[in-house]
């Protein structure tokens, strides 16, 4: 019957069969694409990275960035393996904000090294997993040599951590005093969001970021309370404190956009617009009766309602945007109103102590001072042009997140590639020493185990090497296993005079140490911890929690990709 009907059809649309690729990692096309992706992300890594322009080739605006979230959002591939890596890294970034490029580069290096050493995939996977647990175990140890305990009594390390994050994005084009200024502001803003008196559950406040283009970075500032953009001609008489606030999350534009799509039947002669407007004015009346002085709305407010409220001495601000809602709720204690069809219960009103006007360049801001103790602050970011400002805003948000994560785990890792080289040396040493125990557990030969461990360590070192983009060479010292960079224009003789401190700035060059090039084989050794009386004062610090997680994400993603036997693609 079925056959019959098919034969009777005048046209047959042929469905192409799905394409199945066996062992995708051995296909040269996939390898080339992975290599391209690695080179692409590697060149965007670190404070001297090369930037990428993202645009749509039909005259849209150009985004210049070296931030993983921007770059990975922009690239899309028909190759499922690339998409898998991409989404896995993006997921990490959405949770931790930082170390996206680290995870991506490490994962891609692992894959490339795995391809080169030619071991069985299941051995690679097992060894990778084992070494990952070795790394995370070491990083969690009390005496870990590449970890710094953050002391909240002094802001020094916090500022260093913030500065390392901020100066890792060269699109911001910051001078040294500028990045110092922004780092200090970031820490200040972070401290303002930590509540002073601690109730049962600690709830961190929020930082609202406002960007102003065309001013010097040094004009950036942090204010306690909230700053809201206002229409220029805002004027109000002296208001008595505290001011009652109402906050709407629904659109008050007077349309029916909130009811969703679908067909609506209505009787002839009904003027919907004027009926909704009547409803809005009714709302306005009630709010006035309740003594509200500040009328805020996330979305648009109908001009007639605005006019009515302003005439009655209410300050009206519309189009706040969703990002300001949470800080506003925390600051004012108001509950956002999401309907206009019911009378507003008096419990949803919030209050502020008072308001004042602040002028920043062309922007007029209404400054809301909280009525009680809150942990809300506003950060004004200024930069000379839009591209740099956008990146600066992104990087400041990352910094805020990184600083918040230190409250849970008050540690930082040595930056500048030192953690990577240190870990590599540690793992290499450890795996050599415990080779017999490990192989019996993992069920592979000693040679296999050592080869796989070498691939893992080398991948880690490659990430450290990726920080250099100007042709310099990477070195490792054979005492503490820190990372050093030798600029391309310096010859071996000048080495001692020129050599700056190591990547993180903890180890001075004058200490007599043997160094080895990172791409050459050196004898395994156990990296010695730095024994100093005072706590370590690094100049570059990496975030701890994001990096530990990124390490895990990179290894697990690489293992997953190594485990892929077939790729089946529906090409219809």
């Amino acid at each position, binding site marked *: 019957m079925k056959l019959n009907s098919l034969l009777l059809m005048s046209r047959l649309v042929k469905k192409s069969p799905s394409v199945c690729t066996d062992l995708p990692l051995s296909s040269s096309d996939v390898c080339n*694409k992975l290599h*391209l*992706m690695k080179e*692409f992300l590697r*060149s965007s890594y670190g404070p001297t990275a*090369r*930037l*990428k*322009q*993202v*645009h*749509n*080739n*039909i*005259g*849209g*605006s*150009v985004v*210049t960035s070296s931030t993983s979230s921007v770059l990975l959002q*922009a*690239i*899309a*591939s028909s190759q499922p393996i690339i998409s898998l890596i991409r989404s896995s890294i993006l997921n990490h970034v959405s949770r931790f904000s930082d170390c996206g490029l680290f995870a991506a580069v490490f994962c891609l290096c692992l894959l490339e090294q795995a391809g080169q050493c030619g071991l069985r995939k299941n051995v690679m996977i097992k060894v990778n997993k084992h070494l990952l647990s070795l790394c995370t175990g070491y990083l969690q140890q009390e005496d870990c040599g590449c970890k710094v305990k953050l002391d909240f009594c002094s802001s020094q390390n916090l500022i260093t951590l913030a500065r390392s994050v901020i100066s890792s994005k*060269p699109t911001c*084009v910051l*001078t040294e005093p500028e990045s110092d200024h922004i780092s200090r502001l970031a820490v200040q803003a972070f401290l303002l969001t930590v509540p002073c008196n601690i109730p049962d559950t600690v709830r961190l406040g929020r930082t609202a970021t406002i960007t102003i283009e*065309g001013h010097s970075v040094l004009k950036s500032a942090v204010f306690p309370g909230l700053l809201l953009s206002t229409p*220029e*001609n805002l004027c109000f008489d002296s208001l008595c404190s505290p001011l009652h606030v109402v906050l709407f999350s629904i*659109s008050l*534009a007077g*349309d029916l*956009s909130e009811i969703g*799509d679908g*067909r*609506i*039947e*209505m*009787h*002839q002669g009904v003027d*919907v617009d004027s009926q909704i407007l009547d409803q809005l004015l009714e709302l306005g009346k009630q709010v006035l009766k309740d003594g509200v002085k500040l009328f805020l709305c996330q979305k*648009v407010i*109908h*001009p*007639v309602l605005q*006019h009515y409220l302003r*005439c009655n001495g209410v300050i009206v601000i519309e*189009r706040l945007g969703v990002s300001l809602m949470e800080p506003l709720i925390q600051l004012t204690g108001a509950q956002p109103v999401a309907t206009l069809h019911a009378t507003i219960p008096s419990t949803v009103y919030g209050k502020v102590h008072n308001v004042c006007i602040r002028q920043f360049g062309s922007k007029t801001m209404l400054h809301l001072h909280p009525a009680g103790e809150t942990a809300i602050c506003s950060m004004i970011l200024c930069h*000379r*042009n*839009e*591209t*740099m400002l956008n990146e600066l805003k992104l990087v400041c948000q990352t910094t805020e997140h990184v600083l918040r994560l230190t409250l849970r785990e008050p540690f930082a890792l040595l930056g500048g590639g030192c953690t990577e080289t240190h870990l590599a040396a540690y793992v290499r040493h450890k795996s050599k020493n415990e080779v017999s125990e490990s192989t019996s557990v993992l069920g592979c030969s000693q040679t296999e185990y050592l080869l796989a461990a070498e691939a893992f360590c080398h991948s880690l070192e490659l990430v450290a090497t990726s920080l250099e983009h*100007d042709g*310099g060479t990477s070195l490792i010292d054979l005492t503490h296993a820190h990372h050093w960079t030798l*600029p*391309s*224009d310096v010859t071996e003789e000048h080495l001692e*005079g*020129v050599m700056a401190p190591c990547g993180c700035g903890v180890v001075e060059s004058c200490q007599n140490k043997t160094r080895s090039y990172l791409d050459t084989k050196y004898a395994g050794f156990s990296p010695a911890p730095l024994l100093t009386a005072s706590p370590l004062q690094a100049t570059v610090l990496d975030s701890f929690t994001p990096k530990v997680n990124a390490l895990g994400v990179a290894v697990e993603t690489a293992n997953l990709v190594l485990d892929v036997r077939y790729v089946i693609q529906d090409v219809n």
Partner: protein
Amino acid sequence: MLESVIINSRQHVGLQKVSALAGRFRSSIGPIKNYKFIQDEVSGESVLVCSCFRIIENLEPTCAVGQLVYETVQAHHKGYRSGSGCLLFLAGAWSRTALDCLQRGIAVTHIIKAMSEGIDICLDVCKKSSVLFKDIAVMHKRSATPQDLELQLSEEAIADTSQVAAKVHDKCLNMSGQRRVKLSRHFCEAKSEMLSSALLPDLLELPDVAVLAESLSHGCEDAMKLAVEAVQMLSKMNQQDISDPSFDISKVQTCVLPGLPEDCTCVVEGCVFRLSDEQARVAHRIKQQPLKVALVTGDLSQTYRHLGFKSLSGVGVCEHLDLSASSKEDEWLEKVVNRLLNLKVNLILTAGLASQKVIQQCCRHHILVVEKVNSSVLRIIASSTGAVPVSYATQLAEHCVGNGINVEIWRDLSSYERESSTAVNISNGRNGGLVTAVITSCIHGKLQALEDQFWACAYRLHHALKDRALLPGAGGTEVLCVHQLQKQAEYHRVEDSKTGSAANLYRGLVLQLMADGLIDYISAVMVSTGRFSAAEARTIVSNQLQDFHKDEIIAGKFWQLILESRREDAVFSAGKPDEALTVKIYDNLSVKQEAWRKALDLVFLVLQTDAEIITGTGQRTEENLMRL
């Protein structure tokens, strides 16, 4: 889809693109500007452009780097209205500097560090060589006797402008110090200023706007004259404090009237608008009497909805009786007209458009509708008449209506154009504080350029009065920057050879190359005046620099240099040669600093970029593309 271009660092494609794009503006920088036609090969349309900004606007660059350049220029133009050419040229010149450095194998980080040092030197020179207003006033006073102007200037007044200024300061301080004993502290400060200016009348006065304007006109004398008139008219109308002159740009609007000869260009108190014949008849009826005015920020039509209003798409009416849309509109129109009549409004100004029906209906009731009024103008009229701007005409109420505004027939344009039209002037007799620059030309294509020139001049005056200082013009500041850069470059070279340290290895070289970029700029400006060949221009500049280096002594020296350079390229003022000699040329401080800074920021961004990601599915066949 990822398509990325991995650029060979030795031949940075992005920088080459910036350099090539900037090269197109080489002949358009400087005070003498030639008109250019830009023709669209597809549509065959062409536009007449004059300024660099209009050229790049009409070129519509599509590649990523071109877009970035355009965005930068746009941002600059929005705030300054001049200096786009300087920005573009230097972006190109410094791109070549960066390219040059890359070719010599200097690392990107070193280039950025050294070039940042370079721009700091230049901005520092700007700060140090800027001439304060009071010094300009002094110079102007002294140079009123035109004999031996240059000599006198360079030897006395100018060589020690800073000293003069310092002396003045001292005197003021002493004065207030003495006075403080006698007067209450509340009066002290204001008083002392008055006293000192009374005692030192010729030293403390601010320069006349006309004097400033003359030295800032840069070849646009006519437009500058217009701008000066606007400043003077505004300050008279608003009874401005003379000791604190400023030029509020938001109180100026332009009205472009095609058809009239160019000598009809003028500045008028109030707001001039062009009206159609029908509206003009109403204007004739209501002219010269105090009127009631309503201000509408939206469109005057039934279908208009405010921004952010989403119309319903799936609305169906249950009973399909024929209620046509037109009757709905009529209903609305009747309501609006009735309201206007009730409120006795004779004049509506709207920032948006008005439907033809509204205009006709209003004309019938002798209500004048003026469309497309600038929103800042609306605001000022609102504050001076007491009117409250509303979004919808139906919103109008008694308290929204303003009083005391007049309509006058400014000029009947019917003899100049095919369709007859009339220009009216809307003003309120009191200090409304608005002026209109009426810009006219028989040639339609020139109007845009003339309007741009007016705004360029107006913004130059605005920024000059805001900065309270000017920079020596005619290439003077640039020459000084070149000198400083070369001096610093030399210093680095000597230092490096002494210590043998490699850390600053390239700084000298990069600074030298940056200076070359500025020299290129100076000579390009000289060449574009048409009086020098490229070789001549370069020789003149390098001769001056050599002289400069030889006796590198006093700060006063560079003044002489500028004066000399001015004599040689009197050109810069583009006026009559003998007249040019007596006029000093100045540049705007903030405009120049900002243009330089923006140019270098652009170079930095492009220099650090090594790949572009092309999103979307746009097909492009090009080499160097890689797909992910």
